[in-house]
């Protein structure tokens, strides 16, 4: 949507989540919105990079109340109690920041996390500008841009509605080795391969593992991915989300044709979807530019939030009738 149209929505006091390049978000008036920087999108025409328009998710017609809150590394745990009973929260977190790492490492230990949905995404930049520009979040009420604070909008729903947060993950565990780690972290030098300690980079190289395939953990049926960022025999393996001790991972089975596989699992009924996002790695590895993922549109992000941080996964929220 062009900036002028977004500003018209803001002026009409619509309650919004905005995704766009930093230069366009800076042109949006203050109002009841939160936002995050990202120039990659899945729109009605397919995957694209767009630095002129804004992707708008408008909650106004489905909610009864909202509250916008900022979270730094000190007050992040208060996110849980700020959520609205029976409602849901939408969270944007700046990529590659301390708050990103803290959220990813700690959120699963927060009490009652799974009682109220928290959906959202990790903000990013044009990949060609990595290291030059930093991903940011925005509190639209104050107009503040953050490099190291998350921003959430907590939303209440009418009594006759409830939210449902789901994922579409085309990856599942392969039949290979069981990989475990002795500590939580966004990087690992060592891993346990079927219980035996190994240099993880050597393991990846010696086994000729395609690093576009994520590590996959089976959370009682939910496949949760950890994507590999880089492989360095000295520094170890860097990940886009943390590996956790006490969790068993396997390298994913390859997905031959993402679009075909996606269209086989996408819900047939998408009219209740109020928002979704997909991963930049799916966009890159599956070459989604110009290709559609059903009717689901949204930003293409540097990490997706479905209660916890996930990678290479589409996340979407529906509002259902009780």
């Amino acid at each position: 949507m062009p900036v002028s149209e977004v500003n018209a929505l803001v002026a009409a006091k619509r309650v919004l989540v905005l995704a766009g390049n930093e230069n366009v978000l800076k042109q949006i008036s203050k109002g009841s919105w939160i936002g995050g920087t990202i120039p990659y999108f899945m729109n009605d025409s397919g995957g694209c990079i767009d630095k002129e328009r804004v992707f708008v998710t408008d909650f106004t017609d489905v909610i009864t109340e909202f509250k916008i809150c900022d979270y730094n590394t000190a007050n992040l745990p208060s996110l849980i109690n700020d959520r609205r009973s029976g409602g849901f929260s939408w969270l944007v977190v700046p990529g590659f920041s301390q708050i990103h790492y803290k959220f990813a490492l700690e959120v699963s230990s927060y009490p009652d996390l799974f009682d109220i949905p928290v959906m959202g995404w990790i903000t990013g930049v044009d990949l060609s500008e990595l290291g030059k520009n930093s991903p940011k979040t925005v509190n639209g009420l104050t107009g503040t841009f953050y490099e190291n604070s998350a921003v959430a909008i907590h939303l209440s729903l009418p009594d006759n509605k409830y939210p449902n947060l789901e994922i579409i993950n085309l990856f599942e565990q392969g039949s290979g080795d069981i990989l475990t780690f002795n500590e939580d972290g966004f990087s690992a030098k060592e891993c346990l391969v079927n219980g035996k300690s190994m240099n993880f980079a050597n393991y990846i190289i010696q086994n000729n593992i395609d690093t576009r395939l994520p590590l996959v953990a089976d959370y009682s049926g939910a496949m949760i991915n950890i994507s590999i960022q880089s492989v360095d025999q000295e520094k170890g393996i860097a990940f886009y989300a943390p590996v956790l001790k006490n969790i068993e991972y396997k390298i994913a089975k390859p997905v031959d044709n993402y679009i075909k596989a996606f269209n086989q699992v996408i819900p047939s009924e998408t009219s209740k979807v109020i928002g979704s996002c997909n991963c930049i790695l799916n966009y890159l590895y599956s070459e989604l530019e110009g290709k559609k993922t059903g009717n689901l549109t949204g930003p293409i992000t540097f990490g997706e939030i479905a209660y916890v941080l996930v990678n290479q996964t589409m996340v979407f929220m529906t509002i259902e009738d009780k």
Partner: protein
Amino acid sequence: MIPDINRPEWEDLISGQITPKITSLSFQLKLNNLKLSVSLKKIDLKSAANDLHKYCIAQEKLYQKDLNLIFK
């Protein structure tokens, strides 16, 4: 209607005695979290089962399909 807490399936789910194909993301994540807590001895099996039962009461509509699968 949520099945009574005395049904053995609650503890069987957490202990892994039964592994139905649950489809709701939040149910999967909650169950996994409780399984992990029990395996790390942070809570006992009975407390975890009680927690899961209470959780499902609050999310009854959302989990109806999964509960029907578990409590055949």
